[in-house]
């Protein structure tokens, strides 16, 4: 199986550039094309992404760690975080609406799937207490509890 570019970088302002708007995350980088999402094309990251670090991958991304505030994850396919997702996540970055974002604690400052966009409410809000999953349904981005049946969604 062809593993295309994986890039973990830590560059000046990588996090901040995204905070204020809903531009697609590509910037100067190669756009992630959804044709490249073959069901198995997945990268496993065994670390925490800290502020201003980011990972972009054309396939799926699984992170065994946290995604801290100010960090960014961009995938052509799904994003699964086994820890606390507090930064920015963009699944289906090439336009694939079937992409999902699941996290042990789904607490992103900004969440995008394909061209849909949502952000954390301003001010204080209660943190999630259980794993959750975000997806596009009926043209909007929805977030629901992750339960034993939810894994079926990954096969769509």
């Amino acid at each position, binding site marked *: 199986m062809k593993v295309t570019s994986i890039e973990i970088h830590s560059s000046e302002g990588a996090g901040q550039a995204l905070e204020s708007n809903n531009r697609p995350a590509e910037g100067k980088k190669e756009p992630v094309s959804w044709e490249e999402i073959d069901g198995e094309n997945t990268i496993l990251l065994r670390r925490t992404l*800290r*502020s201003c670090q980011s990972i972009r991958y054309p396939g799926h991304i699984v992170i065994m760690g946290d995604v801290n505030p100010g960090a960014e994850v961009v995938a052509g396919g799904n994003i699964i975080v086994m820890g606390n997702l507090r930064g920015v996540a963009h699944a289906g970055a090439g336009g694939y609406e079937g992409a999902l974002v699941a996290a042990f604690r789904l607490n992103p400052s900004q969440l995008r799937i394909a061209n849909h966009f949502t952000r954390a409410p301003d001010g204080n809000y209660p943190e999630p207490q259980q794993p959750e999953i975000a997806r596009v349904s009926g043209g909007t981005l929805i977030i629901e509890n992750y339960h034993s049946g939810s894994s079926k969604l990954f096969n769509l």
Partner: protein
Amino acid sequence: MGEVIVVTSGKGGVGKTTTTANIGTGLAVMGNKVVLVDTDIGLRNLDVVMGLENRIVYDIVDVVTGNCRLKQALIKDKRFEDLFLLPAAQTKDKTAVSEEQMRELTQQLKEEFDYVIIDCPAGIEQGFKNAIAGAQRAIVVTTPEVAAVRDADRIIGLLEAALLAEPKLIVNRLRPSMVKKGDMMDIDDMIEILAIELLGVVPEDEAIVISTNKGEPAVLDKQSKAGEAYRNISKRITGEHVPLMNLEADGFFRRLRRLFGA
């Protein structure tokens, strides 16, 4: 052979210089031979905090450019025989020193001293890279504010990338009353995000301001809470096990209560 410890933060004004002066002095009180290195070139103030400003003749740039010998530039503290300061240059900028030069300098210093404590400038540019170049351990200072913690996280990422593993955290300027009211981030929240070991918590304390102006580190002031926190931190640096002070423990008690569902 001594140890080189860099004190860093990302954000400015969170207490790197205060921390460097206090743990350096604290370690000297315990009988260690210590040198403090100010790498904040162009914005030096460790000399002021130590009350040694009027003694500066040569500085770090003079040393690395061979303008003087290392011994000539080291300023002896007025209170302790075995405490020295290598001041930053005031008139140059941060590119006046290279990472390679810093590695050589710290190598030389740790042959003479038990502890080489490096005061890092704010930011992530050349000054930061210079400050960490020769270090074996890192202390990250933050205040209980979202922006400072964000920068600390960034810095920890850069330290990890530079293979300066397992940096330790100091939380400075904590105000327990504000934490109690929920108006300030508590220790738990910070540790949960940063996921590094806590070296100590220093409370907000007027004694720091007074001592800074007098050029006398608060660690010498037996009445000061911040001084006590810095004495504890100094001991922990040498490997001594010192439990967290009452005020330091506030956050942990909260977690206990949370576990019990109260």
